[in-house]
């Protein structure tokens, strides 16, 4: 029994954090907001050079073959820096789906290789999301038609842009016609692919939410330590301290829930879906509390366009309902907890 990360995993996370700290600074995020496409090919190129697009791709196709557990650290960093790029959709969620396709799908290996080298951008149109993130700039879209999985080139779909409160999110309603040429899986196999893809998408959003929560906490602590009123830093006042202590506590107790879910998914445990929903709820609540208390601590500055808190709050507000809103995830948890077969109580946390 060892519910911790290896030194290598933690060192990798550190390296990613240092990289994004330089390459995804808030000023740069604002510059990218003002571009039409909302994406920076330069940033994507640097991300690929770091090998981050290759994490989930199997070794045999030029990747690093990392699993969901590694991604539970990685997605926190993506959230912490609120990168203006749906990197995890391509490199984690889409890579997972494509790697699970039968090997006789003609382009499977090519797609995996181009994911690994960073030359392809793939958008994932899971039916749970009404809009597809990054559909506009995608090269390829993975789309659902009943139980079928289609891999559709961008040129074969129309994308109706639906701007989000988060300027970095580029959502689109995708209009397309399924045909047999784009179908890569169907029937039981298709259903299974979409089911696993759902869990991976949820976990990706959960990890990002937790990273966002930590960033908002850090920004708020910094602000409270330097902003003075009544002749003292506002962070010395108990009311302010307790707001931030509550956020820290929520984050502290969401982390292991995320890690447990990632492990369950990586191992294909029967109870993975419940663990994943628990993680999404815990991380979403941490992020929303961090936003609410964060803006409160920032006072009127938090309500301005100028202060960076906004970019993290808005991402948190948006991601909370993506890959299943709270109702969806609470229903899944309740189905287990209140179900007849639930193994509840002490000693069931790791074994069913």
């Amino acid at each position: 029994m060892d519910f911790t990360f290896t030194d290598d995993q933690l060192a990798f996370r550190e390296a990613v954090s240092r990289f994004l700290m330089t390459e995804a600074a808030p000023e740069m995020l604002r510059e990218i907001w003002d571009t039409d496409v909302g994406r920076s090919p330069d940033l994507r190129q640097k991300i690929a050079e770091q090998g981050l697009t290759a994490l989930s791709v199997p070794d045999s196709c030029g990747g690093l073959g990392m699993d969901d557990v590694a991604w539970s650290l990685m997605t926190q960093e993506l959230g912490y820096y609120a990168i203006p790029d749906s990197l995890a959709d391509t490199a984690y969620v889409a890579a997972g789906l494509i790697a699970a396709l039968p090997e006789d799908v003609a382009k499977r290996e090519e797609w995996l290789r181009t994911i690994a080298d960073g030359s392809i951008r793939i958008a994932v149109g899971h039916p749970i999301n009404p809009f597809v993130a990054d559909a506009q700039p995608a090269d390829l879209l993975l789309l659902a038609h009943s139980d079928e999985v289609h891999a559709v080139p961008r040129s074969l779909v129309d994308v109706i842009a639906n701007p989000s409160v988060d300027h970095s999110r580029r959502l689109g309603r995708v209009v397309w016609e399924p045909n047999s040429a784009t179908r890569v899986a169907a029937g039981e196999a298709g259903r299974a692919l979409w089911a696993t893809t759902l869990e991976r998408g949820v976990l990706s959003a959960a990890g990002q939410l937790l990273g966002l929560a930590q960033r908002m906490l850090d920004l708020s602590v910094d602000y409270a330590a330097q902003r003075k009123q009544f002749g003292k830093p506002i962070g010395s006042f108990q009311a302010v301290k307790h707001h931030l202590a509550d956020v820290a506590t929520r984050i502290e107790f969401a982390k292991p829930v995320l890690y447990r879910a990632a492990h369950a998914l990586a191992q294909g445990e029967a109870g993975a879906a419940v663990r994943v929903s628990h993680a999404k709820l815990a991380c979403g609540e941490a992020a929303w509390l961090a936003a609410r208390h964060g803006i409160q601590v920032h006072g009127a500055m938090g309500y301005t366009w100028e202060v960076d808190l906004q970019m993290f709050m808005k991402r948190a507000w948006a991601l909370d309902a993506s890959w299943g809103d709270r109702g969806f995830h609470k229903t899944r948890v309740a189905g287990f907890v209140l179900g007849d077969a639930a193994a509840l109580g002490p000693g069931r946390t790791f074994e069913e």
Partner: protein
Amino acid sequence: MDLAFTPRQRAFRAEVRAWLADNVPRTPLTSYDTREGFEQHREWERRLFDARLSMVMWPEALGGRGCDLIEWLIFEEEYYASVAPLRVNQNGQLLLGPTLMEFGTEAQKQRFLPRMASSEDMWAQGWSEPNAGSDMAAITSKAIREGDHYVLNGQKTWSTRAIYADWLFGLFRSDPASSRHHGLSFLTVPLDAPGVTIRPIRALNGKEAFAEIFFDDVRVPVENRIGDEGKGWHVAMATAGFERGLLLRSPGRFQHTARRLVALYQAHRESADRDPAIRDAVCESWMGAEAYALSAYHTVGRLAKGARIGDEASTNKIVWSELDLKMHETAMRILGARGELVAEAPDAEDGASWLEGFLFAQAGPIYAGTNEIQRNIIAERMLGLPKS
């Protein structure tokens, strides 16, 4: 990350489970907040000790079996799942025990720990005073050195089950010229010593669950001091907050409560569902208890790898106390108009156990350092915010 238990861990779980199945009393013991119940619980502790299960993490030489933290978590899970009696000597075993391990002399360990493990000695704590609650450094009770003795004068309060206990440990001001956290010494005091007066305080549940203790020229030999003279604050605080928070309330306890709450909801589903918030609260209870367990395993794993767990430990106490309160509030709402019935009421459900727990849960955010103090600790030491 390897989330499988080892064969040794599984075997330990099986052994504990089997022993508890054979030994846990079929009918619940009388409340340990009464004289009769206290002695029943002492007998139960003795049985645990004889099976080397009272203090599983302590070294064998001191009455334990040398388990690590994972095995301790396993023990606790099985203990609470078996609905065994509450641990009556936990203030000594869980709060003083680790302090003695770290600061006690070999002679003190031999003198106190085995008798603590077997509950031949029952311990009460002496921290709070009438004017030193959250502000514990305001302690004024004195221990003035006279040769090879200290002479104690002053008053302690909120000392849990002190009227039934044999010994007290606590902080006394050994340097009368000192102030705040300087000049304090950590002493152990036999409660039958001349000059000790114990007055019970009736708690919210109507029982004499705690007491105030008066010291009137009480003579305590110097060898009863733990750690150096004047360093009592350091001794009291040094045992990591994490260990205290987690040891005092392990996750199994709350996972068991969450399971009972789900069962209570199922039994009253028709009436409970008239309030749509109840179902949500029941599910959140399971999630909260599970998160606490996961956090414990994650933390214990990091400790085993040599990590230092610092002030983030204060988050534990907030989480379990608020979770416990929420679960019992939810149970009271499910029980509706029957919730107020006490144990003697013929129509009380499950011996009024939810009401008892609800009353006790009110104390959770207050004892062991109020949750306001914990939030200050988190803000100042974990987040680095300035002191007020």
